């Protein structure tokens, strides 16, 4: 069991002048094992903050998060994270980037390289194992970042707009590859995105957040099989529904 449970979660940021901004309030969400959930919402609704709290990179002001039944108190290799910005360590070769988490765990060099090779193979970048990150394109860097997160064998994979900086075609290809990785590795994935299209294409459930203070406005089940057809009527219908929801809340501000 590798589910994520979020209970009565609230987060307030203190500003310089001492005033507090409520970023999240009363968020309750149950994410089950091997589920693919996307968080969407208008800008500033706190979806990234929510993800960062699950990762242990921010602390909740009220309520809490449990992963796999254990409360999150700080960053933990059990929660892998893929960032929006390019986060590969530029001074390490691709293979040693992927092996980084295992190195921190104290796994011997031979073994961690073997594991890293396996995950590089999985994301289709074996031939770049000895390259440095600057030699890779944006899409390849994010694939390596995914391999690096997976190499730690996390229970949950958190992704913060990982394809946000990629061009449309690369993005579509990455989405396909991510789904195939998900099917192979059976990780629970929590995925933050700006793109409703991406959310409908990828997720089992779309969690729509309302703006500041962010809370869950609606959860939409998408029970269709994959790969999904972006041009189908039902796809367009769901996309329209979610977009309208985000628009309404944005205008209500």
């Amino acid at each position, binding site marked *: 069991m590798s589910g994520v449970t979020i209970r009565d979660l609230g987060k307030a940021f203190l500003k310089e002048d001492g005033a507090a901004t409520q970023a999240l309030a009363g968020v309750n969400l149950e994410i089950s094992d091997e589920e693919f959930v996307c968080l969407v919402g208008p800008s500033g609704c706190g979806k990234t903050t929510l993800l960062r709290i699950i990762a*242990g*990179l921010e602390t909740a002001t009220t309520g809490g998060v449990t992963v796999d039944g254990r409360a999150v108190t700080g960053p933990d290799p059990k929660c892998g994270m893929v960032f929006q910005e390019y986060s590969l*360590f530029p001074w390490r070769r691709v293979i040693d980037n992927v092996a980084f988490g295992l190195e921190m765990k104290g796994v011997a060099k031979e073994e961690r390289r073997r594991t890293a090779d396996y995950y590089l193979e999985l994301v289709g970048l074996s031939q770049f194992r000895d390259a440095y990150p600057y030699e890779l394109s944006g899409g390849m860097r994010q694939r390596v970042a995914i391999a690096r997160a997976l190499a730690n064998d996390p229970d949950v994979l958190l992704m913060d707009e990982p394809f946000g900086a990629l061009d449309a075609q690369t993005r579509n290809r990455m989405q396909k590859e991510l789904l195939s990785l998900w099917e192979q590795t059976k990780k629970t994935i929590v995925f933050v995105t700006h793109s409703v299209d991406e959310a409908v294409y990828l997720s089992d459930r779309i969690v729509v957040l309302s703006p500041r203070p962010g809370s869950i406005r609606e959860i939409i089940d998408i029970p269709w099989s994959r790969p999904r057809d972006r041009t189908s009527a039902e796809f367009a219908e769901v996309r329209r529904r979610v977009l309208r929801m985000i628009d309404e809340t944005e205008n209500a501000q």
Partner: protein
Amino acid sequence: MNRQTQKRLLGIAALIVAAVIWQIVAEYVVGRSFILPSVTDVAGAFVNLLGSGTLLADITVSLEHFGIGLLAAFLLGVPIGILMGWFRVADFLLDPIIEILRPIPPLAWIPFAIIWFGLTTQAAGFVIFAGAFFPILTATYSGFRDVPKVFVEAGKVLGCDTSFELIRYVALPAAVPAIASGIRIAMGVGWMCLVAAEMFGVSRYGLGYQLWHNYYLHQMPNVVVYMLILGLAGLIIDRIFRNYVDGQLLRWRAGEVA
């Protein structure tokens, strides 16, 4: 003729022209070797000095002073820079002290260098240290402050639990380019301090020492020889370091220069 050879040929031509003008001015306009030694005077002095055999000892002793100063600056500057760049409390504590000490010209430390170390190699090393320490410290400090936040967070989620691990595996490698350029600046400043550091006679040899010694003997062509050697050695040291850094440390930033 391609650009590169063109550049080289023009450079050599300019040097020759400068030498000729120098020679003409020294010989026919000034006319006194004491005021302005001519090219041929200097060349002759150089040959004589080669024959007398102290040049190698001078270079060795100077490199020793320089090495002591730079090594000490590195061994103290990098750790203190790391502390201040990583821990806010260390920054708040040390920053006022650093800010007061830093603007003091390195050569102003000479009296205390002599009082504390006597007329020793270490005294000369200390003056060079006073010049080289702050560039290394501030470069390390800002290198650590500028480590992208996403690298630190990636390190944390991948299993770096302690500040030590984050510094060792994430922040320090990320700051290496900044530290390297700090060292390069420090080497320039340290080399400048060398002449003054050897002025007060800590040794019988040394490029800076000989410069002053020959001045007292009114051997101005020799002074020019030592000036040129000081310049050339500074250039070579800088080139060697730059090539090393570019080649070894910064393979991951191909094409960028420290």
